[in-house]
């Protein structure tokens, strides 16, 4: 039953065999590491990519504990083409087309080939006040040597142009979700960067901005910094539910928080739904995903940076799913039992954190499709061969030794998708990235009339480190780069 009391019968849930690959290898370019944003618009699926994520991470500074680096990196970042792309898929023809590539600008480093956008992290179809019809809006990720990040607008899915941006501070580098609520479009900064370095999941400001007419620069802050708590470093995800806008934070100090508001005049009045990571503390550092399903708001929680916030000493720990009701009570659906301010909580599904997978760093995305709730995860298991694990806890080390590193990666590497018709009983759709362990995240799940699209994060291209005869070497990876899968039940046979 949904929030207005309608009962929806679930259709046939999708299984792994219902999914087929529509594109691999990053649309033929292994540098398209993430299918970072996706939306269904005017009969096509649009995917915005982020490029060279794992390479950019390495070149941004030394990373302890990872050797060799999983992908080959040039010595100069500008040896890579990091201009983010938008691709569009037409189901009727089963064809992908490149519809947009980021321009370059003269950067603060004096170069003329600085990409405006190295990633496109959020998409939404919104009809703002000046729009004649719903338009596609795309939130971008800009390097610190370029301008502040833009939001792009397209009325036809072919031509994209930036709109007036919010009054971000200079360190803001990216936003994620664009949300249409109460007659305004909303977004919040979710990544920051300067010449000293960048972090894609912590922003320099934790504020939600809103604008009723995206053709204008009339952006206004509708929340206080961190909802009044300076430990809320970022408003990471937003969604609507039960007539409210919900905002979930990154809080490395005490654990993520969830807030809600009915909107109205700016600044909105906000109410805290839970804090302290819903009683789990720092191991629910971030609210990573939000989705309404059958009268409740499903909340994905975890730790940033793939489940291990190394700089803050948080984790590793696997992700959880919580569901919140209109009266602010909440259930633990997937996760770790505990006594909380709301009493004793245990996972109603019976699954421990990460769906019993300790390598599950996030629940990255939810989607409702044909009466089922689908949850896509992120798994860092594929990083295992490159991580120095000697200092890990003994039980984790014992597990790796018992399974065998290769067997673990080959057999169980890759992100997962799970489904449920009632929010409590869950079944796996895929537990190994559709058979490609390089698909380390199900970054986007999009429900469409043609089926459920699953667009992955797969940063293991163009060349991945492989061990041969005891020696590491970089070799071209035909299964590196993001993939897009389409799930639909088989067509009924003709009578």
């Amino acid at each position, binding site marked *: 039953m949904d929030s207005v009391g309608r009962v929806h019968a679930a259709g046939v849930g999708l299984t792994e065999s219902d999914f087929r690959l529509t594109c691999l290898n990053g649309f033929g370019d292994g540098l398209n590491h993430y299918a970072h944003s996706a939306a269904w618009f005017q009969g096509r699926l649009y995917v915005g990519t982020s490029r060279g994520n794992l390479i950019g991470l390495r070149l941004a500074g030394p990373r302890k504990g990872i050797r060799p680096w999983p992908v080959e990196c040039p010595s100069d970042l500008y040896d890579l083409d990091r201009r983010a792309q938008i691709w569009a898929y037409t189901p009727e023809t089963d064809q992908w087309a490149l519809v947009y590539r980021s321009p370059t600008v003269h950067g603060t480093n004096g170069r003329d080939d600085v990409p405006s956008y190295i990633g496109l992290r959020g998409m939404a179809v919104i009809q703002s006040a000046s729009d004649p019809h719903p338009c596609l809006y795309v939130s971008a990720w800009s390097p610190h040597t370029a301008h502040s990040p833009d939001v792009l607008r397209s009325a036809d899915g072919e031509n994209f142009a930036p709109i007036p941006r919010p009054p971000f501070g200079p360190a803001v580098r990216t936003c994620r979700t664009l949300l249409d609520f109460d007659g305004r479009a909303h977004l919040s900064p979710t990544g920051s960067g300067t010449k000293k370095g960048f972090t894609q999941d912590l922003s320099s400001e934790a504020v939600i901005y809103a604008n009723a007419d995206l053709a204008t620069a009339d952006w206004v802050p509708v929340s206080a910094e961190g909802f009044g708590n300076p430990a809320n470093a970022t408003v990471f995800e937003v969604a609507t539910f039960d007539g409210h806008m919900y905002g979930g934070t990154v809080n490395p100090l005490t654990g993520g928080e969830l807030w809600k508001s009915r909107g109205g005049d700016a600044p909105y009045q906000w109410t805290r739904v839970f804090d302290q990571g819903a009683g789990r503390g720092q191991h629910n550092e971030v609210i990573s995903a939000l989705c309404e399903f059958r009268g409740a708001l499903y909340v994905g929680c975890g730790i940033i940076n793939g489940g291990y916030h190394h700089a803050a000493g948080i984790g590793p720990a696997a992700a959880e799913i919580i569901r919140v009701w209109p009266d602010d009570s909440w259930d633990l659906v997937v996760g*770790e*039992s505990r006594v909380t301010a709301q009493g*004793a909580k245990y996972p109603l599904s019976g699954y*421990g954190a990460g769906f019993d997978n300790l390598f599950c760093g996030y629940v990255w995305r939810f989607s409702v499709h044909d009466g089922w709730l689908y949850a896509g995860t992120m798994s860092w298991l594929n990083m295992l061969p490159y991580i120095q694990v000697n200092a890990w806890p003994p039980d984790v080390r014992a597990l790796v030794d018992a399974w065998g590193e290769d067997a673990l990666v080959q057999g169980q590497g890759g992100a997962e998708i799970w489904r449920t018709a009632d929010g*409590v009983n*869950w079944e796996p759709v895929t537990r190994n990235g559709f058979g490609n362990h390089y698909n380390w995240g199900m970054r986007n799940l999009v429900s469409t009339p043609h089926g459920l699209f699953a667009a992955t994060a797969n940063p293991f291209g163009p060349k991945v480190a492989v061990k041969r005869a005891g020696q590491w070497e970089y070799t071209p990876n035909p299964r590196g780069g993001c993939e897009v899968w389409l799930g639909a039940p088989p067509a009924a046979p003709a009578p």
Partner: protein
Amino acid sequence: MSPPVRNAPAPVWLLAAPFSGVTSVAAMLNRYPELWVTGELDLLLADQVSDLLAIFSLSQGTQGHGLLRTLARLQWERDDSPAIRAAQQWLEERQDWPCSELLNFLRAAAAPRRLVIPERDAPLRPHALRRITAWTPDADLVHVVRHPLPQGKLLAAWAHERLYVPVDFKDFSQQPPQVDPQLPWLRANENIERLRRDWSPGHTCLVHADTTSNSGGASRAELEQALGLSDVPASARPEQDASAWWLGRRGPDLAPGGYEPEADLASAITALGNVQEWSLTMSLPWRRDRAGFTPEVRACARRLGYDEG
């Protein structure tokens, strides 16, 4: 393929939270000639025998021991080391079997006696309990309960200074996480309650392990009536029942487990006292903050027939 199961009576599942006395109830039922009581089979953990064996190989506890010892007894009428090795090989030769078929094999092997299967791990996981519905829709369900205070004391005693304690037994609101038995107690009992709610009326009952061992205890009589059992004199001492039963005591080195570890905690059981001394409102000795039972645990305990005290 296993022999046909059509002549084998429907099994009885003994479902309980950890350390709730399922072994003592199982040992008590073992005295009835129409029943064949197994060890903890752990069959509900997987759909395929191959997956089950993989789980057993990774287990840091005694998962799989009950299945091996039960299979050894049914096949070769003993559970010494050679029989255990033979049982292991037998399972490995049937890795392509569904676990439901393995269960049917055991049922047929025990027939005409009725299989009684204790389960204290599956109640923590609804997806495991769903296999009971799928595999044996005509089974009888016996919900075995123990007051959460003695249950907690036993679990805490077992976990004390143990290197490996299942995550399901811990409270993760505390750093580091601390063992809190009321959480698995609540989780298992509420999951069993949900399963029983949808079960065929007349094929499910509730048994208090606190009282089944008492001569003339109400729970024993109700259990006999619910399962249609012959009249067998009650035993005065539960631990005598458990240790007199081959699956109530340690097995050979290859498979020493297969029963609830509380059977090894005889002195702890003796120290528990009796039901009149147990309260739902007292502070909990295993919690550093000495908090009491949560409201959810108290409400569940009352539903299961325990007074506030």
